[in-house]
């Protein structure tokens, strides 16, 4: 190995930068691609040569031009050995690595549930406290009331309402033809929670109310606690008057609480009126709808059971609710009779 001739010291870095003499030296570590014997088709010069060779072959054999051209064109692109060549392999490898990097970046960004983690940071006693609080309207509406921004309570309440609705739909023998019971229940509850929250948030944006989407979701979610209680009671005890009383009292309280919180965060009479009127109307009407949509059937049974001729099991899907309802209704009627006679 001879010493490099005519070397100039071009060291500008303290670590001894890349020296020209290393690159220019013969017998250095750099592989000279031109002298490669490997016919893997990896260098551009080799590819050029092969392309030339194949063109000549095509000119010679003209009778089998169709098939050879097809193969030749494919082979021409990546060299004689095509995808088996080193260049093809490297390209494929780099594409795979880049794709994998992109995919894992996107996955870490969007599928990261840690984004939601702060909203689930609650204690059981906090949840209990907020549930009770949701039925107590606040008095002070002159300064903004604090709204907890958590999603655990609302989500659990929505699922509880789904379960209660399912129970109500089954006892009333609701027939869902274009869908399933579960799908309808989930769709109704989640649709109400998310849809009405978004709508009220949009109105709040228009009316300049100081409330964020998370707070609105949380507020409406906890407002569903009153609905759950009312529905749970009235799906099992079928008295219209009882339902109306509970609707006004419990539904009213939970609506008042939400309305008071919103009023405390809005300025001006008209915006307050618009926002709170809409929310009150939607909330109360939803409870009314939930009760009556899945209730008509059982109403009919009660009326027919009053008469002497009880028709055979009709319009009721199963025996369980009839027995349970009859027992409960009979008990309450007897209690009412006793109370009235005193």
């Amino acid at each position, binding site marked *: *190995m001879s*010493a*490099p001739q005519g*070397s100039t*010291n071009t*060291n500008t870095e303290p670590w*001894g930068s890349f*020296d020209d*003499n*290393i690159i220019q*030296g013969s*017998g*250095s*570590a750099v592989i000279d691609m031109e002298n490669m014997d490997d016919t893997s088709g990896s260098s551009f010069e080799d590819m050029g040569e092969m392309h030339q060779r194949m063109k000549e072959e095509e000119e010679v054999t003209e009778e089998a031009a169709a098939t050879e051209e097809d193969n030749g064109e494919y082979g021409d692109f990546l060299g004689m050995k095509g995808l088996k060549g080193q260049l093809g392999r490297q390209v494929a490898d780099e594409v795979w690595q880049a794709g994998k990097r992109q995919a894992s970046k996107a996955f870490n960004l969007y599928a990261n*549930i840690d984004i*939601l*983690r702060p*909203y*689930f940071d*609650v*204690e*059981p006693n906090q*949840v209990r406290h907020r549930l009770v609080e949701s039925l107590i309207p606040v008095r002070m509406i002159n300064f903004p009331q604090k709204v907890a921004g958590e999603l*655990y309570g609302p*989500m*659990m309440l929505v*699922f*509880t309402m789904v*379960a209660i609705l*399912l*129970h109500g*739909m*089954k006892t009333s*023998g*609701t*027939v*869902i*033809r274009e869908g*399933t*019971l*579960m*799908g309808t229940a989930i769709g109704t509850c989640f649709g109400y929670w998310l849809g009405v929250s978004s709508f009220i948030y949009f109105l709040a944006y228009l009316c300049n109310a100081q409330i964020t989407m998370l707070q609105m979701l949380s507020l409406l979610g906890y407002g569903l606690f009153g609905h759950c209680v009312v529905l749970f009671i009235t799906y099992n005890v079928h008295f219209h008057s009882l339902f109306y009383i509970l609707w006004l009292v419990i539904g009213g309280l939970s609506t008042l609480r939400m309305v008071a919180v919103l009023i405390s965060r809005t300025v001006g009479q008209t915006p307050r009126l618009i926002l709170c009127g809409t929310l009150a109307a939607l909330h109360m009407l939803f409870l009314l709808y939930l009760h009556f949509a899945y209730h008509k059937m059982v109403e009919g049974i009660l009326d027919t059971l009053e008469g002497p001729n009880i028709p055979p099991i009709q319009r009721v*899907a*199963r*025996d*369980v*609710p009839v*027995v349970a309802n009859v027992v409960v209704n009979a008990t309450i009627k007897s209690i009412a009779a006793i109370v009235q006679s005193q």
Partner: protein
Amino acid sequence: MAEVEESNKPLFAGLSDISISEDIPVEGDISVPVGSQNTDNDFSTLDEPVKDTILRDLRAVGQKFVHVMYPKKSSALLRDWDLWGPLLLCVTLALMLQGGSADSEEDGRPQFAEVFVIIWFGSVIITLNSKLLGGTISFFQSLCVLGYCILPLTVAMIVCRIVLLGGASIVSFAVRLIVVTASFSWSTFASTAFLADSQPANRKALVVYPVFLFYFVIGWMILTFSPSQ
């Protein structure tokens, strides 16, 4: 070696000059570490008869069933989780619960797909909830536990079916109610024995409630099942 000109050269310039003299022995042994036995083990399960594979998997599933029925504090369910058991239980339950067509008198019974979706999406949601609350077990371990703990409810379904063969009356309703309530509380207890350990102490109630709701819905579907006439 070029000793004379070394001091005049800049750093790294002499790298290309190094040649190995003959009196330094450069010899050794290149041997591949013995991995052939490991690869034999990895591939040996491909050569065994299918009966062995199936029996081994069934035995693992059966062992986990035993762990669910007697929930001790063991980590077998968590350590080697598998989803065969839950799938088996889910399909059995859904087949037994499915209803007739929508035009028949006995309407409103859950269809096969409904039960399937309830079980799997319910499990996913409970798992996400427990992870968001700071749980330490992984996604699939949690799915495995929740799926296996449906076993008591499946047993209750079979019992209810048998009881209903004797006709539908108040007595049968009372028996079914007791059986379903017992099995649903057993399921909840069994799954919390596995799941709640992975939570911080004061948040156990927050994780248990959705599990309770989940098994309650399945229990309700079993209780309100009545066969077509």
